[in-house]
């Protein structure tokens, strides 16, 4: 089924990734579907933006300088104002154990890198429909 181009209309989404290109690709795609994308290139920056913006959800890479994905999710959970915002981890191709661990520490789900145009949205929608508090906001 074709994904409607205004699916994420009005959504604030924060994307955290230390790779500029990766960040831009995600941003372009999300923008295409109507979202307000806010980017950060490390966990600390991301946290600040999340506290201010209070997005619908966050997409975060795992390995970043200053504060990595693990630190980011911990700090997020420690802040009651933003602790309930779902965070999706961007995991690298390999570590199976890491995926499980990510779920344990509080990531809602995960997407595997690299993000391809073909698959990104489809996979993302699959995840979003599993989150009750977001489903109602989808512009379907």
């Amino acid at each position: 089924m074709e994904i409607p181009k205004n699916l994420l209309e009005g959504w604030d989404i924060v994307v955290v990734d230390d790779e500029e290109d990766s960040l831009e690709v995600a941003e372009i795609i999300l923008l295409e579907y109507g979202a307000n994308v806010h980017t950060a290139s490390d966990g600390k920056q991301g946290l600040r933006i999340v506290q201010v913006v209070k997005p619908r959800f966050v997409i975060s890479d795992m390995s970043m300088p200053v504060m990595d994905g693990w630190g980011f999710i911990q700090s997020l959970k420690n802040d009651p104002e933003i602790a309930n915002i779902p965070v999706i981890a961007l995991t690298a191709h390999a570590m199976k154990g890491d995926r499980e661990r990510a779920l344990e520490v509080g990531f809602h789900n995960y997407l595997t890198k690299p993000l391809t145009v073909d698959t990104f949205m489809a996979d993302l929608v699959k995840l979003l429909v599993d989150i009750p508090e977001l489903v109602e906001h989808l512009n379907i």
Partner: protein
Amino acid sequence: MYKRLNDVSIGVKLNLIITVAVSVIAIILLAIQIYITLRLVNEFGQVRVEQEIQVIGEELVRVQEDMQTAATVLVNVPGLIEAVANEDIDAIERLSLGAVPSLNIDDFDIINSEGERLIDTEEELSDDEEGEDELIGQALLGIQRSTILLEEEDDEVSLLFVSIRPLRDENATIVGGLLLARELNHELLTALNYGRNGIDLSLIYDNDVLASSFSEDSSAFIDNIQFNGDSITQTLAGVSSDTPEFTLINRIIYVSTYVPVQGLDDRSATAVVQIRINNRELNLFLRRLIIGTIIVAIALVSALVFIILYRIRFLIVRRLRRLQETIAEIAEGNYDKRVTDETSKDEIGQLANDFNRMAGEIQSHENELQELNQSLENRVAERTLELKKARDEAVAAQRLANENSRLKSEFLSTMSHELRTPMNAIEGFTGIMLNNMGGVEYNDKAERYLKKVQSNSRRLLALINDFLDLSRIESGRMELVSLPMTPSMMANKWEDNLSVLAQEKGIGFEVTVDPTLPETIYGDEEALTKVAINLIGNAVKFTSEGSVTLSLEKREENMAMVVKDTGIGIPPHAREFIFDEFRQVDQSSKREYGGTGLGLSIVQKLVREMGGTVSLDSEVGAGSTFTVLIPIHTEEKQIA
């Protein structure tokens, strides 16, 4: 008990034996000594008795002299002789009785010239005055003598010392006679000092004791005076005994001997004097003798024993002790000790000698042992050193290898990331552009060239992925996990992800799962997925019409993944090498169909890691069937 006795020191054993032996000898000597003592006592007694006899003789003589003196005194009493001549009894009485008390006499008679008694102090007329009369008669004849008279009076017998003296007037005419008598009684004997020095005299007549110097309050009364009747008879008969008689009364030894008393007419003896020496002296002598003997005996025995023991100590115990000490020292480990002060050739000396030789042997053995030990130690030390060196080298090599391995891992990991990152960016942006996102505008030509960029970058990415996978598998860095997986779910995922490939080519794609497969099996899903992707990818690539099917089947204890296609097939000669890296059937195939040529290599290696096999069946023009067999693990497989 016996064993303990046996363990007692030699010294002690010899002590005992010698003490016993010497004691026995001592006892024998003591017996001899006692015998000699008795003999001595005998002699002593005898000597003493003879002494006494002599003394008694002298005593008797003295008594008699006393009597003579008494007679002389009486005779010279003034006026007495006249009174006798005149037979003036009153005067006689007065004069004589006045003088007598001062004299030691018991009785005196004065007779006139006719032989008639003028005075008689005896209280009673005795029955037997025969003896006295005879003596008086002798006095009238002018005889002057002293003698001993035995008088029997009723049942009593007494012994008298008698002295007679004629009474002469101035003209030496015998006018009368004088008889003095003194009884040998207890008082006399006592007066003679008998009974006090341990010497008693007893006068025995006719088995009766007439008088005795035993004091009445002594332990031996007159009635209890013991005498040997046989000895008395013998003595009277003239047989004198040489050996004195020993009696023991109240623990006092008495030596007795019997001396006959000559009668008036020197007839055979009628009475016997028993001289008894009760002999404190003797006792003392005896006691001293015995004690002295015992002391001497003990002293001798002790000295003897002491000397013998000392010698033994010297001769045996000490030498043995020295030997034992040397042995102990050697036992401690001083192998150079020897027994040095043995010069004798006796048993102990020989023992010491042989022992020294043995010690010498031990010492030399010990030295040999030490040398051997030392050389052994040296060799061990060398070997240990060598081993250590080898070990150190091995450890270093291992560390180096680990380091290399780590570096390789790091390298691979870094390469993996570094290679993929730009590829992902290329893919991302080309995708965005080709999907007309981000406000991009382009014309057809740009689209065509973009597509080329995309397909090439995808090819490059595939190559990189395959290459990295292969590298990891090759260097063993691909560690397969053993986690639960659900075949049906896996198959569904594959279908979802890979059907698009078939759709693009317009061929059919089907995935089936054997229901008899266990619902959960253990293995590495990712690796299996890689295999599936590679096989299906190949199948689709080389099939232009028809279909591709993947089925998961249960074959005994294995799970089979069968990928079948209706493609161009693989010629027989190619089957050998298509699994090799970078090989396809031929060069033209590569160009036409693309692909890295690494796929099957990866499949083969992965399957091998999983402990399975991959086989190929193909017909040129009809299609190919790849069959992968993996053993089914129903529980977590431990990494060996």
